């Protein structure tokens, strides 16, 4: 059985339906991406998986359990690094990182992870005592990912980590995502509009359009599909 199994999930806000019956799976150690144009429902799906919103129908099963609130999901190891980073701007870089370890009791391991993050993201070591709000966009993204990793996730949900970053930083994020599985043993579900980044790191992918999965398969297949080209370059998006 898959680590994360999503089946026929329908979500929406008020009268608007966003996801119209989405199914997907994520196995241990995998990096899987969900691609799709703006407004396809990718972020909403991630919020539902993280437990921030309740799906109207369908099931989200993690490790055999379903229907948990966000804080319980996080304690069980499904952690969302949200779109727009959402770091705590009034708190220091160190406090942000330590909040990631809120639910952990293995204090020695937390300290070790904390040092690992500072080594892995050197800019965070430099800015350790600075307010989160004083960091640049790229630095905030590093902090958001590091804070997510401090929870020791089994599944890391990344929502548009490359948004608004320079090509150089996107490259850095790419290296980090590739490293997450090996270094931290987490599976990754990556939502991206930057298809280049997503295709470079993921082994499988789903293409979402108008709240539905329209195509899924190994990344090499997706890369060649004419539909991908249409969606991203042709302009039938929407």
């Amino acid at each position: 059985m898959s680590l994360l199994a999503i089946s026929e999930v329908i979500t929406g806000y008020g009268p608007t339906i966003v996801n119209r019956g989405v199914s997907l799976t994520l196995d241990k150690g995998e990096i899987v991406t969900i691609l799709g144009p703006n407004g396809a429902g990718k972020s909403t799906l991630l919020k539902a998986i993280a437990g921030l919103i309740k799906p109207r129908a369908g099931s989200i099963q993690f490790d055999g359990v379903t229907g948990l609130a966000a804080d319980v999901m996080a304690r069980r190891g499904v952690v969302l690094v949200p779109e727009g980073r959402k770091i705590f701007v009034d708190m220091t870089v160190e406090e942000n990182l330590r909040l990631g370890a809120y639910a952990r009791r293995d204090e020695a391991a937390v300290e070790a992870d904390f040092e690992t993050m500072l080594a892995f993201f050197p800019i965070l070591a430099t800015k350790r005592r600075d307010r989160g709000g004083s960091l640049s966009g790229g630095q905030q993204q590093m902090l958001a990912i590091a804070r997510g990793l401090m929870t020791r996730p089994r599944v890391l949900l990344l929502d548009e980590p490359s948004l608004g970053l320079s090509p150089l930083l996107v490259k850095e994020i790419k290296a980090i995502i590739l490293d997450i599985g090996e270094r931290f043993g987490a599976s990754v579900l990556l939502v991206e509009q930057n298809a280049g980044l997503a295709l470079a790191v993921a082994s499988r992918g789903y293409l979402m359009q108008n709240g539905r999965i329209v195509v899924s398969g190994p990344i090499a297949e997706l890369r060649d599909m004419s539909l991908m080209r249409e969606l991203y370059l042709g302009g039938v998006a929407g």
Partner: protein
Amino acid sequence: MQQVSIAVDIFIQQILNGLSIASVITLIAIGVTLIFGLTGIINFAHGEFLMIGGIVTWLAVSAGVGFPIAVILSILAVGLMGYVLERGLFRFTLERPTNGFIVSLGLIVVLQHVVVLFWNPNQKSIPRPLTTVWEVGGVRIASVRVMVILITIAVVALSFRMITASRYGRALRASVEDRDTAALMGIPVRRYITGVFVLGSALAGLGGALLIALFPITPFTGGTMVMKGFAVALIGGLGNIYGAVAAGLILGIVEGFSAGYGFSQWTDAYSFVLMILVLVVRPHGLFGGTSGPRMAS
């Protein structure tokens, strides 16, 4: 020469008086500001929580219990009341904080009249728990006022320490800043909301016990006290507990100063004048507040 020294005596005494009342108001303001920061609810019934703290102290002392034990009973009773009201009422208004505010307005009437029903609307007082008056170089210092100020300083210092240094305090500040993202860190935000109601109510219970040590109270004392507590919370920046304490200190000094120099009839207005002035110049309060909780979009 003579006249100057008399003025200074009065000044010091009035500052002490101002600070002792401001202590009680600060205890309310911390509760108001914490509850708002986490839930967006402005709990105007917080003054009634204070009044009930005073009533519990009065009941306990009248039954022959010593003042220190009565204070602890008030803290426990009002803390428990906060727990029950959060679980039974405010919990259901979290999605729409305005409803919580309206619920709190209703609670004012209910709580006042429950007290009137059981214990009549008359003034209630207890014998002063400390009667010593120190004479220091011509300045008369009532030890009971010093006690109120010291207890408040100790409680505020303890709360600050908890909020800045502990893991729970860090999680609380994170929840105030962004509830959803705090939940993503595994923080059980709902439990923190309950915790803040209990803590805020317990501080109001303490405030009530300290207030009745200074003055007689009636079932309607809560109204003016909560208005001042709210003004102090606004001056400091709603949601900002450091701001609330600093603003409480400022108000205490201003009230004491004015009473000492012959403007005592205006004392009750200062908090509001100060509030209006501050809000005109700095709409988010002197020290910056929060805009209330951010919700799932």
